[in-house]
Protein backbone atom coordinates (compact mmCIF):
# COMPACT_ATOMS: atom_id res chain seq x y z
CA UNK A 1 0.00 0.00 0.00
CA UNK A 2 1.32 3.41 -0.99
CA UNK A 3 0.50 6.22 1.38
CA UNK A 4 1.10 9.82 0.38
CA UNK A 5 0.74 12.37 3.14
CA UNK A 6 0.70 16.15 2.79
CA UNK A 7 3.13 16.08 -0.13
CA UNK A 8 4.31 19.43 -1.49
CA UNK A 9 6.84 20.10 -4.21
CA UNK A 10 7.62 22.78 -6.73
CA UNK A 11 9.97 24.33 -9.23
CA UNK A 12 11.54 27.45 -7.76
CA UNK A 13 8.73 29.71 -6.68
CA UNK A 14 6.14 27.68 -8.59
CA UNK A 15 4.15 25.25 -6.47
CA UNK A 16 3.31 22.08 -8.39
CA UNK A 17 2.02 19.97 -5.49
CA UNK A 18 0.37 21.50 -2.51
CA UNK A 19 -0.39 19.21 0.42
CA UNK A 20 -1.40 16.12 -1.54
CA UNK A 21 -2.59 13.13 0.52
CA UNK A 22 -4.11 9.82 -0.63
CA UNK A 23 -3.53 6.08 -0.48
CA UNK A 24 -3.22 3.53 -3.25
CA UNK A 25 -4.29 0.11 -2.10
CA UNK A 26 -2.46 -3.13 -2.77
CA UNK A 27 -3.70 -5.11 -5.72
CA UNK A 28 -5.65 -2.22 -7.10
CA UNK A 29 -5.39 0.32 -9.88
CA UNK A 30 -5.48 3.89 -8.63
CA UNK A 31 -5.91 6.52 -11.31
CA UNK A 32 -4.56 10.04 -10.84
CA UNK A 33 -6.58 12.35 -13.02
CA UNK A 34 -6.62 16.02 -13.85
CA UNK A 35 -6.03 18.55 -16.57
CA UNK A 36 -2.68 19.46 -18.07
CA UNK A 37 -0.55 21.12 -15.41
CA UNK A 38 -2.53 19.74 -12.51
CA UNK A 39 0.66 18.24 -11.07
CA UNK A 40 0.16 14.60 -12.04
CA UNK A 41 3.60 14.01 -13.50
CA UNK A 42 5.27 15.92 -10.69
CA UNK A 43 3.45 13.68 -8.25
CA UNK A 44 4.91 10.55 -9.82
CA UNK A 45 8.39 12.09 -10.10
CA UNK A 46 8.29 13.12 -6.48
CA UNK A 47 7.14 9.70 -5.31
CA UNK A 48 9.93 7.97 -7.22
CA UNK A 49 12.60 10.35 -6.00
CA UNK A 50 13.38 12.11 -9.28
CA UNK A 51 12.08 15.31 -7.78
CA UNK A 52 12.63 16.48 -4.22
CA UNK A 53 9.65 17.01 -1.99
CA UNK A 54 9.55 20.23 -0.03
CA UNK A 55 7.25 18.76 2.59
CA UNK A 56 5.26 15.63 3.37
CA UNK A 57 5.96 11.91 3.27
CA UNK A 58 5.57 8.87 1.05
CA UNK A 59 5.36 5.34 2.46
CA UNK A 60 5.31 2.04 0.62
CA UNK A 61 4.14 -0.89 2.72
CA UNK A 62 5.34 0.84 5.85
CA UNK A 63 8.77 2.02 4.72
CA UNK A 64 9.46 5.67 3.98
CA UNK A 65 10.29 6.50 0.37
CA UNK A 66 10.85 10.22 0.57
CA UNK A 67 14.57 11.04 0.98
CA UNK A 68 15.38 7.80 -0.88
CA UNK A 69 17.29 8.29 -4.13
CA UNK A 70 15.54 7.34 -7.35
CA UNK A 71 18.03 4.62 -8.18
CA UNK A 72 17.18 2.69 -5.01
CA UNK A 73 13.44 2.52 -5.73
CA UNK A 74 13.48 -0.69 -7.78
CA UNK A 75 15.07 -2.51 -4.85
CA UNK A 76 12.22 -1.28 -2.64
CA UNK A 77 9.60 -2.63 -5.01
CA UNK A 78 8.64 0.58 -6.79
CA UNK A 79 8.80 0.83 -10.56
CA UNK A 80 8.22 4.06 -12.44
CA UNK A 81 7.49 4.12 -16.16
CA UNK A 82 7.98 7.76 -17.10
CA UNK A 83 6.02 9.89 -19.48
CA UNK A 84 7.07 9.29 -23.08
CA UNK A 85 7.77 5.70 -22.09
CA UNK A 86 11.54 5.87 -21.68
CA UNK A 87 12.57 3.09 -24.01
CA UNK A 88 16.34 3.25 -24.46
CA UNK A 89 16.26 3.05 -28.20
CA UNK A 90 19.99 2.47 -28.62
CA UNK A 91 19.75 -0.83 -26.73
CA UNK A 92 18.14 -4.04 -27.90
CA UNK A 93 14.82 -5.24 -26.55
CA UNK A 94 16.48 -7.82 -24.37
CA UNK A 95 19.05 -5.35 -23.09
CA UNK A 96 16.22 -3.05 -22.04
CA UNK A 97 14.60 -5.93 -20.21
CA UNK A 98 17.85 -7.04 -18.55
CA UNK A 99 18.39 -3.50 -17.37
CA UNK A 100 15.04 -3.71 -15.62
CA UNK A 101 16.08 -6.92 -13.89
CA UNK A 102 19.41 -5.49 -12.77
CA UNK A 103 17.71 -2.78 -10.79
CA UNK A 104 16.28 -5.08 -8.13
CA UNK A 105 19.02 -7.46 -7.12
CA UNK A 106 21.96 -6.44 -9.25
CA UNK A 107 21.60 -9.46 -11.50
CA UNK A 108 19.09 -10.88 -13.95
CA UNK A 109 17.04 -13.95 -13.15
CA UNK A 110 16.47 -15.88 -16.40
CA UNK A 111 13.08 -16.94 -15.04
CA UNK A 112 11.97 -13.30 -15.03
CA UNK A 113 12.90 -12.98 -18.67
CA UNK A 114 10.97 -16.09 -19.54
CA UNK A 115 7.99 -14.79 -17.63
CA UNK A 116 7.80 -11.46 -19.43
CA UNK A 117 8.39 -13.10 -22.78
CA UNK A 118 5.39 -15.33 -22.05
CA UNK A 119 3.36 -12.31 -21.06
CA UNK A 120 4.50 -10.34 -24.12
CA UNK A 121 5.16 -12.82 -26.93
CA UNK A 122 5.63 -9.95 -29.37
CA UNK A 123 8.77 -8.94 -27.44
CA UNK A 124 10.15 -12.46 -27.46
CA UNK A 125 10.06 -12.41 -31.24
CA UNK A 126 12.13 -9.25 -31.38
CA UNK A 127 14.45 -9.73 -28.44
CA UNK A 128 17.61 -9.08 -30.48
CA UNK A 129 16.29 -6.05 -32.34
CA UNK A 130 17.23 -2.50 -31.39
CA UNK A 131 14.35 -0.94 -29.46
CA UNK A 132 14.60 1.87 -31.98
CA UNK A 133 12.60 -0.17 -34.50
CA UNK A 134 9.63 -0.97 -32.25
CA UNK A 135 6.21 0.56 -32.79
CA UNK A 136 4.58 2.78 -30.20
CA UNK A 137 2.44 -0.04 -28.77
CA UNK A 138 5.40 -2.40 -28.66
CA UNK A 139 7.43 0.21 -26.87
CA UNK A 140 4.71 0.60 -24.25
CA UNK A 141 4.71 -3.13 -23.77
CA UNK A 142 8.47 -3.13 -23.51
CA UNK A 143 8.56 -0.54 -20.74
CA UNK A 144 5.86 -2.33 -18.75
CA UNK A 145 7.69 -5.61 -19.23
CA UNK A 146 10.94 -3.93 -18.23
CA UNK A 147 9.29 -2.62 -15.08
CA UNK A 148 7.97 -6.12 -14.28
CA UNK A 149 11.51 -7.50 -14.51
CA UNK A 150 12.19 -5.88 -11.14
CA UNK A 151 9.20 -7.73 -9.60
CA UNK A 152 7.68 -4.52 -8.28
CA UNK A 153 4.83 -4.31 -5.80
CA UNK A 154 3.96 -0.82 -6.95
CA UNK A 155 3.98 0.32 -10.56
CA UNK A 156 3.79 4.00 -11.46
CA UNK A 157 2.60 4.54 -15.02
CA UNK A 158 2.70 7.99 -16.60
CA UNK A 159 0.31 8.46 -19.53
CA UNK A 160 0.62 5.01 -21.09
CA UNK A 161 -2.09 5.82 -23.64
CA UNK A 162 -0.39 8.88 -25.05
CA UNK A 163 -0.12 8.76 -28.81
CA UNK A 164 -1.43 5.22 -29.16
CA UNK A 165 -4.37 4.03 -31.23
CA UNK A 166 -7.50 3.27 -29.18
CA UNK A 167 -7.32 -0.42 -30.02
CA UNK A 168 -3.76 -0.63 -28.67
CA UNK A 169 -4.70 1.35 -25.56
CA UNK A 170 -7.51 -1.08 -24.86
CA UNK A 171 -5.14 -3.99 -25.34
CA UNK A 172 -2.61 -2.55 -22.90
CA UNK A 173 -5.21 -1.70 -20.30
CA UNK A 174 -6.57 -5.20 -20.57
CA UNK A 175 -3.11 -6.55 -19.97
CA UNK A 176 -2.67 -4.32 -16.94
CA UNK A 177 -5.94 -5.46 -15.45
CA UNK A 178 -4.79 -9.06 -15.86
CA UNK A 179 -1.49 -8.34 -14.14
CA UNK A 180 -3.13 -6.63 -11.23
CA UNK A 181 -5.39 -9.57 -10.73
CA UNK A 182 -2.89 -12.38 -11.24
CA UNK A 183 0.13 -10.89 -9.49
CA UNK A 184 -1.60 -8.68 -6.94
CA UNK A 185 0.34 -5.73 -8.39
CA UNK A 186 -0.61 -2.23 -7.36
CA UNK A 187 -0.71 0.39 -10.06
CA UNK A 188 -0.71 4.15 -9.80
CA UNK A 189 -1.88 5.30 -13.20
CA UNK A 190 -1.60 8.88 -14.37
CA UNK A 191 -3.89 9.65 -17.26
CA UNK A 192 -5.28 12.62 -19.04
CA UNK A 193 -7.69 10.32 -20.78
CA UNK A 194 -9.91 10.04 -17.71
CA UNK A 195 -12.68 7.99 -19.24
CA UNK A 196 -10.54 5.03 -20.18
CA UNK A 197 -8.48 5.31 -17.02
CA UNK A 198 -11.57 5.11 -14.85
CA UNK A 199 -12.71 2.12 -16.85
CA UNK A 200 -9.94 -0.03 -15.39
CA UNK A 201 -9.22 1.83 -12.16
CA UNK A 202 -10.70 0.86 -8.84
CA UNK A 203 -10.16 4.25 -7.37
CA UNK A 204 -9.46 7.75 -8.66
CA UNK A 205 -7.71 10.80 -7.29
CA UNK A 206 -8.42 14.08 -9.06
CA UNK A 207 -5.80 16.82 -8.93
CA UNK A 208 -6.25 20.47 -9.76
CA UNK A 209 -3.45 23.00 -9.53
CA UNK A 210 -1.51 20.72 -7.23
CA UNK A 211 -4.32 19.99 -4.79
CA UNK A 212 -6.54 16.93 -4.40
CA UNK A 213 -10.09 17.95 -5.29
CA UNK A 214 -11.66 14.50 -5.26
CA UNK A 215 -10.66 11.03 -4.01
CA UNK A 216 -13.20 8.25 -4.38
CA UNK A 217 -14.11 4.96 -6.01
CA UNK A 218 -13.79 5.02 -9.75
CA UNK A 219 -17.46 4.45 -10.50
CA UNK A 220 -18.46 7.20 -8.09
CA UNK A 221 -16.17 9.63 -9.84
CA UNK A 222 -17.35 8.55 -13.25
CA UNK A 223 -20.90 9.17 -12.17
CA UNK A 224 -20.27 12.65 -10.79
CA UNK A 225 -21.28 14.88 -13.67
CA UNK A 226 -20.14 18.09 -12.06
CA UNK A 227 -16.69 16.73 -11.39
CA UNK A 228 -16.46 15.26 -14.82
CA UNK A 229 -17.27 18.56 -16.46
CA UNK A 230 -15.10 20.66 -14.19
CA UNK A 231 -11.93 18.59 -14.10
CA UNK A 232 -12.06 15.51 -16.27
CA UNK A 233 -13.28 16.92 -19.57
CA UNK A 234 -15.75 14.21 -20.53
Amino acid at each position, binding site marked *: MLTVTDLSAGYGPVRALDGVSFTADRGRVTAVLGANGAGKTTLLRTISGLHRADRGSVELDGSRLDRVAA*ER*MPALGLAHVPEGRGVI*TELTVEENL*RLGGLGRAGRVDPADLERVYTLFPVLADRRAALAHVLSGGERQMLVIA*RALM*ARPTMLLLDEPSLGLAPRIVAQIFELLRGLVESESLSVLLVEQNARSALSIAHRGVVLNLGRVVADDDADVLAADDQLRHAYLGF
Partner: protein
Amino acid sequence: MQQLLNTALGGLTLGMVYAAFALALVLIWRSTRIVNFAQAPMAMVTTFVALVVVDAGHSYWLAFAAALVSGLLLGAVVERLVVRPVEGGPEINAVILTLGLFIVLHALAAVVFGNRYRSFPAPFGVRGLEVGGTTIALTGFGVFTVLAVLVTMGLLLALFRYTDVGLRMRASAFNPEVARLLGVRVGRMLTLGWALASLVGSLAGLLIAGGSLVHPAYMDSVVVYGFVAAVLGGLDSPIGAVVGGLLLGVALSFVSGYVGSQLVALAALVILMLVLTLRPGGLFAQAAARRV
Protein backbone atom coordinates in the same frame (compact mmCIF):
# COMPACT_ATOMS: atom_id res chain seq x y z
CA MET B 1 58.27 0.43 -53.36
CA GLN B 2 60.12 -0.01 -50.11
CA GLN B 3 59.47 3.63 -49.24
CA LEU B 4 55.81 3.16 -49.99
CA LEU B 5 55.62 0.14 -47.74
CA ASN B 6 57.60 1.73 -44.95
CA THR B 7 55.57 4.92 -45.06
CA ALA B 8 52.42 2.86 -44.86
CA LEU B 9 53.73 0.75 -42.00
CA GLY B 10 54.87 3.83 -40.11
CA GLY B 11 51.42 5.27 -40.61
CA LEU B 12 49.86 2.06 -39.39
CA THR B 13 51.69 2.10 -36.07
CA LEU B 14 51.00 5.77 -35.60
CA GLY B 15 47.41 5.25 -36.66
CA MET B 16 46.99 2.61 -33.98
CA VAL B 17 48.01 5.16 -31.39
CA TYR B 18 45.57 7.70 -32.78
CA ALA B 19 43.02 4.93 -32.64
CA ALA B 20 43.64 4.32 -28.95
CA PHE B 21 43.38 8.00 -28.29
CA ALA B 22 40.20 8.30 -30.33
CA LEU B 23 38.83 5.35 -28.40
CA ALA B 24 39.33 7.28 -25.19
CA LEU B 25 37.51 10.29 -26.64
CA VAL B 26 34.68 8.05 -27.80
CA LEU B 27 34.28 6.51 -24.35
CA ILE B 28 33.85 9.89 -22.75
CA TRP B 29 31.64 11.16 -25.52
CA ARG B 30 29.37 8.16 -25.17
CA SER B 31 29.03 8.55 -21.45
CA THR B 32 28.82 12.30 -20.98
CA ARG B 33 28.51 13.92 -24.41
CA ILE B 34 31.71 15.80 -23.73
CA VAL B 35 34.82 15.90 -25.87
CA ASN B 36 37.65 15.77 -23.41
CA PHE B 37 40.26 18.16 -24.76
CA ALA B 38 42.32 17.48 -21.64
CA GLN B 39 42.76 13.84 -22.59
CA ALA B 40 46.24 14.37 -23.99
CA PRO B 41 47.76 16.10 -20.97
CA MET B 42 46.06 13.58 -18.70
CA ALA B 43 47.78 10.80 -20.59
CA MET B 44 51.03 12.76 -20.55
CA VAL B 45 50.90 13.05 -16.77
CA THR B 46 50.43 9.31 -16.38
CA THR B 47 53.33 8.63 -18.75
CA PHE B 48 55.50 10.73 -16.48
CA VAL B 49 54.25 8.66 -13.56
CA ALA B 50 55.53 5.60 -15.40
CA LEU B 51 58.84 7.36 -15.96
CA VAL B 52 59.14 8.03 -12.24
CA VAL B 53 58.62 4.32 -11.58
CA VAL B 54 61.23 3.39 -14.18
CA ASP B 55 63.67 5.91 -12.74
CA ALA B 56 63.18 4.31 -9.33
CA GLY B 57 64.64 1.18 -10.83
CA HIS B 58 61.50 -0.86 -11.34
CA SER B 59 60.61 -2.85 -14.40
CA TYR B 60 58.89 -1.54 -17.48
CA TRP B 61 55.78 -3.56 -16.80
CA LEU B 62 55.38 -2.22 -13.30
CA ALA B 63 55.67 1.28 -14.72
CA PHE B 64 53.17 0.34 -17.41
CA ALA B 65 50.71 -0.84 -14.81
CA ALA B 66 51.33 2.20 -12.64
CA ALA B 67 50.53 4.49 -15.55
CA LEU B 68 47.31 2.66 -16.36
CA VAL B 69 46.18 2.66 -12.74
CA SER B 70 47.00 6.32 -12.31
CA GLY B 71 45.11 6.97 -15.53
CA LEU B 72 42.10 5.19 -14.11
CA LEU B 73 42.27 7.21 -10.92
CA LEU B 74 42.95 10.50 -12.64
CA GLY B 75 39.97 10.01 -14.92
CA ALA B 76 37.71 9.24 -11.99
CA VAL B 77 38.94 12.18 -9.96
CA VAL B 78 38.64 14.62 -12.84
CA GLU B 79 35.11 13.52 -13.60
CA ARG B 80 33.97 13.54 -10.02
CA LEU B 81 35.52 16.82 -8.95
CA VAL B 82 35.74 18.98 -12.02
CA VAL B 83 33.50 17.76 -14.79
CA ARG B 84 30.44 16.69 -12.80
CA PRO B 85 29.15 20.23 -12.26
CA VAL B 86 29.08 21.01 -15.99
CA GLU B 87 27.55 17.73 -17.15
CA GLY B 88 24.30 18.37 -18.89
CA GLY B 89 25.01 22.10 -18.95
CA PRO B 90 25.79 24.21 -22.01
CA GLU B 91 28.23 22.46 -24.33
CA ILE B 92 30.56 25.43 -24.40
CA ASN B 93 31.16 25.28 -20.66
CA ALA B 94 32.44 21.73 -20.90
CA VAL B 95 34.70 22.63 -23.82
CA ILE B 96 36.16 25.58 -21.95
CA LEU B 97 36.57 23.53 -18.80
CA THR B 98 38.53 20.75 -20.48
CA LEU B 99 40.67 23.32 -22.27
CA GLY B 100 41.40 24.98 -18.93
CA LEU B 101 42.35 21.60 -17.56
CA PHE B 102 44.60 21.12 -20.57
CA ILE B 103 46.55 24.26 -19.69
CA VAL B 104 46.71 23.44 -15.97
CA LEU B 105 48.02 19.90 -16.41
CA HIS B 106 50.59 21.11 -18.90
CA ALA B 107 51.98 23.74 -16.61
CA LEU B 108 51.89 21.42 -13.60
CA ALA B 109 53.77 18.69 -15.43
CA ALA B 110 56.41 21.17 -16.55
CA VAL B 111 56.89 22.35 -12.96
CA VAL B 112 56.83 18.91 -11.36
CA PHE B 113 58.59 16.77 -13.95
CA GLY B 114 60.66 19.42 -15.70
CA ASN B 115 60.34 20.74 -19.22
CA ARG B 116 62.92 18.69 -21.08
CA TYR B 117 63.11 15.74 -23.42
CA ARG B 118 63.36 12.37 -21.71
CA SER B 119 63.60 8.99 -23.33
CA PHE B 120 60.96 6.43 -22.56
CA PRO B 121 61.78 2.74 -22.59
CA ALA B 122 60.16 0.13 -24.75
CA PRO B 123 59.65 -3.46 -23.61
CA PHE B 124 60.34 -4.90 -27.03
CA GLY B 125 62.87 -4.24 -29.73
CA VAL B 126 62.89 -0.91 -31.48
CA ARG B 127 64.70 -2.40 -34.48
CA GLY B 128 62.65 -3.10 -37.58
CA LEU B 129 61.66 -6.70 -38.24
CA GLU B 130 63.32 -8.58 -41.09
CA VAL B 131 61.07 -9.99 -43.73
CA GLY B 132 62.68 -11.83 -46.60
CA GLY B 133 66.03 -10.16 -46.18
CA THR B 134 64.81 -6.57 -46.01
CA THR B 135 63.96 -4.67 -42.91
CA ILE B 136 60.45 -3.34 -42.78
CA ALA B 137 59.33 -0.38 -40.71
CA LEU B 138 57.59 -2.48 -38.12
CA THR B 139 59.31 -3.02 -34.79
CA GLY B 140 58.57 -5.46 -32.03
CA PHE B 141 57.15 -2.58 -30.12
CA GLY B 142 55.11 -1.61 -33.17
CA VAL B 143 53.56 -5.06 -33.20
CA PHE B 144 52.87 -4.71 -29.49
CA THR B 145 51.22 -1.36 -30.19
CA VAL B 146 48.92 -2.81 -32.80
CA LEU B 147 48.01 -5.78 -30.64
CA ALA B 148 47.54 -3.73 -27.50
CA VAL B 149 45.07 -1.41 -29.19
CA LEU B 150 43.16 -4.24 -30.85
CA VAL B 151 42.95 -6.17 -27.58
CA THR B 152 41.85 -3.06 -25.72
CA MET B 153 39.16 -2.42 -28.27
CA GLY B 154 38.03 -6.03 -28.02
CA LEU B 155 37.91 -5.91 -24.25
CA LEU B 156 35.94 -2.69 -24.30
CA LEU B 157 33.46 -4.07 -26.79
CA ALA B 158 33.06 -7.20 -24.69
CA LEU B 159 32.63 -5.11 -21.59
CA PHE B 160 29.92 -3.04 -23.17
CA ARG B 161 28.14 -5.83 -24.95
CA TYR B 162 28.33 -8.76 -22.61
CA THR B 163 28.56 -7.50 -19.05
CA ASP B 164 26.02 -5.97 -16.72
CA VAL B 165 28.34 -3.09 -15.91
CA GLY B 166 28.68 -2.38 -19.61
CA LEU B 167 24.91 -2.44 -19.99
CA ARG B 168 24.52 -0.03 -17.09
CA MET B 169 27.18 2.26 -18.56
CA ARG B 170 25.48 2.33 -21.92
CA ALA B 171 22.09 2.97 -20.35
CA SER B 172 23.51 5.85 -18.31
CA ALA B 173 25.02 7.35 -21.42
CA PHE B 174 21.95 7.07 -23.59
CA ASN B 175 19.28 8.02 -21.11
CA PRO B 176 20.48 8.96 -17.64
CA GLU B 177 17.03 9.59 -16.17
CA VAL B 178 15.51 6.32 -17.28
CA ALA B 179 18.65 4.56 -16.15
CA ARG B 180 18.21 6.03 -12.68
CA LEU B 181 14.59 4.86 -12.56
CA LEU B 182 15.83 1.38 -13.40
CA GLY B 183 18.16 1.44 -10.44
CA VAL B 184 21.42 2.37 -12.21
CA ARG B 185 23.73 4.62 -10.21
CA VAL B 186 24.31 6.93 -13.12
CA GLY B 187 26.90 9.11 -11.40
CA ARG B 188 29.09 6.11 -10.71
CA MET B 189 28.75 4.90 -14.27
CA LEU B 190 29.86 8.27 -15.63
CA THR B 191 32.83 8.27 -13.29
CA LEU B 192 33.65 4.77 -14.42
CA GLY B 193 33.34 5.85 -18.05
CA TRP B 194 35.81 8.66 -17.53
CA ALA B 195 38.13 6.40 -15.59
CA LEU B 196 38.14 3.79 -18.36
CA ALA B 197 38.61 6.45 -21.01
CA SER B 198 41.49 7.94 -19.14
CA LEU B 199 43.01 4.48 -18.82
CA VAL B 200 42.79 3.98 -22.56
CA GLY B 201 44.26 7.47 -23.02
CA SER B 202 47.14 6.49 -20.77
CA LEU B 203 47.68 3.42 -22.90
CA ALA B 204 47.85 5.66 -25.97
CA GLY B 205 50.36 7.85 -24.15
CA LEU B 206 52.52 4.85 -23.26
CA LEU B 207 52.38 3.56 -26.81
CA ILE B 208 53.44 6.88 -28.33
CA ALA B 209 56.15 7.30 -25.71
CA GLY B 210 57.58 3.79 -25.94
CA GLY B 211 60.92 3.83 -27.68
CA SER B 212 60.72 7.56 -28.21
CA LEU B 213 61.04 10.84 -26.38
CA VAL B 214 58.62 12.49 -24.01
CA HIS B 215 58.24 16.02 -22.72
CA PRO B 216 55.21 17.85 -21.36
CA ALA B 217 53.91 18.69 -24.83
CA TYR B 218 54.64 15.37 -26.51
CA MET B 219 50.96 14.44 -26.79
CA ASP B 220 49.70 17.78 -28.06
CA SER B 221 49.48 16.95 -31.73
CA VAL B 222 47.48 13.88 -30.80
CA VAL B 223 44.72 16.10 -29.45
CA VAL B 224 43.86 17.19 -32.95
CA TYR B 225 44.61 13.91 -34.73
CA GLY B 226 42.81 11.83 -32.12
CA PHE B 227 39.79 14.07 -32.43
CA VAL B 228 39.81 13.84 -36.22
CA ALA B 229 40.12 10.05 -35.96
CA ALA B 230 37.20 9.88 -33.55
CA VAL B 231 35.02 12.06 -35.78
CA LEU B 232 36.06 9.97 -38.76
CA GLY B 233 34.65 6.96 -36.94
CA GLY B 234 31.59 8.84 -35.77
CA LEU B 235 32.50 9.74 -32.15
CA ASP B 236 30.06 7.09 -30.95
CA SER B 237 31.61 3.92 -32.21
CA PRO B 238 34.67 2.22 -30.69
CA ILE B 239 35.28 0.25 -33.87
CA GLY B 240 34.85 3.42 -35.89
CA ALA B 241 37.45 5.13 -33.72
CA VAL B 242 39.99 2.41 -34.40
CA VAL B 243 39.37 2.32 -38.12
CA GLY B 244 39.35 6.12 -38.22
CA GLY B 245 42.66 6.22 -36.38
CA LEU B 246 44.23 3.76 -38.80
CA LEU B 247 43.02 5.57 -41.90
CA LEU B 248 44.18 8.90 -40.56
CA GLY B 249 47.57 7.58 -39.49
CA VAL B 250 48.30 6.14 -42.91
CA ALA B 251 46.95 9.17 -44.76
CA LEU B 252 48.99 11.63 -42.71
CA SER B 253 52.10 9.50 -43.05
CA PHE B 254 51.81 9.71 -46.82
CA VAL B 255 51.21 13.46 -46.72
CA SER B 256 54.31 13.87 -44.58
CA GLY B 257 56.46 11.66 -46.78
CA TYR B 258 55.33 12.71 -50.22
CA VAL B 259 53.99 16.27 -49.88
CA GLY B 260 55.62 17.94 -46.91
CA SER B 261 55.55 17.54 -43.17
CA GLN B 262 54.38 21.14 -42.78
CA LEU B 263 51.04 20.26 -44.29
CA VAL B 264 50.18 17.30 -42.05
CA ALA B 265 47.94 19.40 -39.84
CA LEU B 266 46.31 21.00 -42.85
CA ALA B 267 45.62 17.56 -44.30
CA ALA B 268 43.99 16.54 -41.03
CA LEU B 269 41.81 19.65 -41.20
CA VAL B 270 40.79 18.90 -44.78
CA ILE B 271 39.93 15.30 -43.90
CA LEU B 272 37.92 16.47 -40.90
CA MET B 273 35.95 19.01 -42.91
CA LEU B 274 35.28 16.51 -45.69
CA VAL B 275 33.92 13.97 -43.23
CA LEU B 276 31.82 16.53 -41.40
CA THR B 277 30.40 17.81 -44.66
CA LEU B 278 29.84 14.57 -46.53
CA ARG B 279 29.21 12.06 -43.76
CA PRO B 280 28.54 13.99 -40.58
CA GLY B 281 27.78 10.77 -38.74
CA GLY B 282 31.22 9.42 -39.51
CA LEU B 283 32.14 6.57 -41.78
CA PHE B 284 30.19 4.10 -39.68
CA ALA B 285 27.04 6.06 -39.05
CA GLN B 286 24.20 3.66 -38.30
CA ALA B 287 21.46 6.02 -37.33
CA ALA B 288 20.08 8.72 -39.55
CA ALA B 289 21.70 12.12 -39.88
CA ARG B 290 23.08 13.27 -36.60
CA ARG B 291 23.57 16.74 -35.28
CA VAL B 292 27.25 17.55 -35.43
